């Protein structure tokens, strides 16, 4: 009978953008099981949020993640607005959609680039990240910041975007689409890429559901779940459908992200075409009181905020369940039975965000 060996994968590993350790139980080169070890970037942000007022928290929770920062503040703001009975103006709702989808695009380009890097395709990695720079530039042009936008606020958004700037965003999308048309056939059709992704890290639909998978990880296993279809912000006035694949492997997860990149292009174009004029936020004097749960679709999947207010400036509890946190149990199922050489690709295929996970 073969003797199992336990080896550490991470926390510092060339394929990992952030620190997480997986203790891999191996039978020769095959993974029997994996045990996650986290805590390397835990910052106690939920605790800190209780010591800041609810307006400061809008900017604090943006710092949970450098990739989906805007959608964190959006989900939080939607929760507080729900508690206080506020409805942001339509223009603010459309701007929230535009910035959310720009975030989704830069996140998916980052993820697919890192995936290419994980199997040694560095040229593709650089091309995808070069395209991502156009999105970062568009965010800088419309908000003044590339990563932490700071534009979402309780009651709407802090900054308006001129018609001229919206036109420049549309022009950026033309450039991005042209470059995507060049890169994506390579990512999806190249023989060596398919060899590394197809049939690797399979997550069965039933297992994905039982283990609580979310986002592209769930959709690649055939689960048609996308909170944008529920119409928060201005999504209810735009065409949004879940991008679903059924193979459940690393290739399917990549394909879902590629399709969502094109979907985001389409959503931003719809939003810019329909955005109404008017104010961008509503004034308020009340304080959050009661309990609320707010959810939104981040690039990596569903994020959930539980908020409890007591009628003062300070929240009693702010709890965040991020998508990568939900995708840890599913990735353990993907790793069981895989080859050691595929572990890096499988982990990156869920687009893990450890800073989000640990907060």
């Amino acid at each position, binding site marked *: 009978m073969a003797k199992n060996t336990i080896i550490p994968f991470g926390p510092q590993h060339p394929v990992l953008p952030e620190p997480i350790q997986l203790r891999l139980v191996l039978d020769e080169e095959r993974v029997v099981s994996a045990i996650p070890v*986290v*805590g390397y970037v*835990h910052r106690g942000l939920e605790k800190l949020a209780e010591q800041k007022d609810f307006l400061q928290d809008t900017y604090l929770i943006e710092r949970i993640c450098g990739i989906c920062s805007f959608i964190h503040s959006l989900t939080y703001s939607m929760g507080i607005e729900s*508690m206080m009975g506020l409805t942001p103006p339509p223009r603010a709702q459309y701007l929230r959609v535009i910035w959310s989808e720009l975030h989704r695009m830069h996140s998916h380009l980052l993820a697919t680039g890192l995936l290419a890097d994980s199997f040694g395709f560095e040229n593709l990695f650089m091309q995808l990240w070069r395209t991502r720079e156009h999105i970062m530039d568009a965010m800088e042009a419309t908000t003044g910041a590339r990563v932490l936008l700071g534009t979402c606020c309780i009651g709407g958004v802090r900054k308006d975007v001129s018609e001229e700037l919206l036109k420049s965003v549309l022009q950026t999308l033309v450039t991005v689409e042209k470059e995507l048309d060049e890169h994506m056939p390579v990512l999806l059709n190249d023989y060596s890429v398919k060899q590394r992704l197809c049939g690797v890290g399979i997550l069965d639909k039933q297992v994905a559901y039982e283990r*609580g998978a979310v986002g592209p990880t769930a959709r690649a296993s055939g689960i048609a*779940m996308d909170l944008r279809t529920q119409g928060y912000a201005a999504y209810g006035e735009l065409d949004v459908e879940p991008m679903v694949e059924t193979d459940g492997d690393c290739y399917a997860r990549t394909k879902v992200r590629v399709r969502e990149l094109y979907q985001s292009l389409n959503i931003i174009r719809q939003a810019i075409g329909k955005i109404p004029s008017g104010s961008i936020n509503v004034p308020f004097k009340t304080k959050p009181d009661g309990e609320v749960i707010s*959810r939104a679709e981040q690039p990596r999947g569903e994020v959930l905020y539980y908020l409890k207010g007591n009628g003062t400036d300070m929240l009693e509890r702010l*709890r965040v369940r991020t998508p990568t946190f*939900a995708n840890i*149990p599913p990735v353990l199922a993907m790793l069981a039975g895989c080859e050691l050489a595929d572990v890096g690709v499988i982990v990156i295929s869920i687009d893990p965000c450890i800073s989000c996970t640990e907060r």
Partner: protein
Amino acid sequence: MINNVENITVDNLLDKVASKMPLGFRFVTMTCVDCGEHFDILYHFDKNYELSNFRLSLKKGESLPSISGLIFAALVVENEIQDLFGVKVTGLVLDYEGRFLLTETAPERPLCRVPGVMMVEAGKPAEAAEVK
């Protein structure tokens, strides 16, 4: 303002949770809230974008039965609650014993509002820290 909340007890927790999964509910997460004398433990499930919740009131000092034997996905959040609130979760399929998110030098039970452990200085054991 949270809809679909059913109050449950420690005694019927496992039966209630077990009844959810055959009905097609997805386990979303759990939330722990320090309410002073007790903790509110919320279990969130989703079906067709509708959240369904259980609320369990747990007296401080009582242990919480783990649902990770029924729902493996609960493993991570139960370990997190054990770390951050000091709630002893029994029957975990993988027990990190309070060191899931927190390092050995981190403040203990940082989200638990108990005098003496709430404002500990980093690097000192909770029991040795002064209450500020």
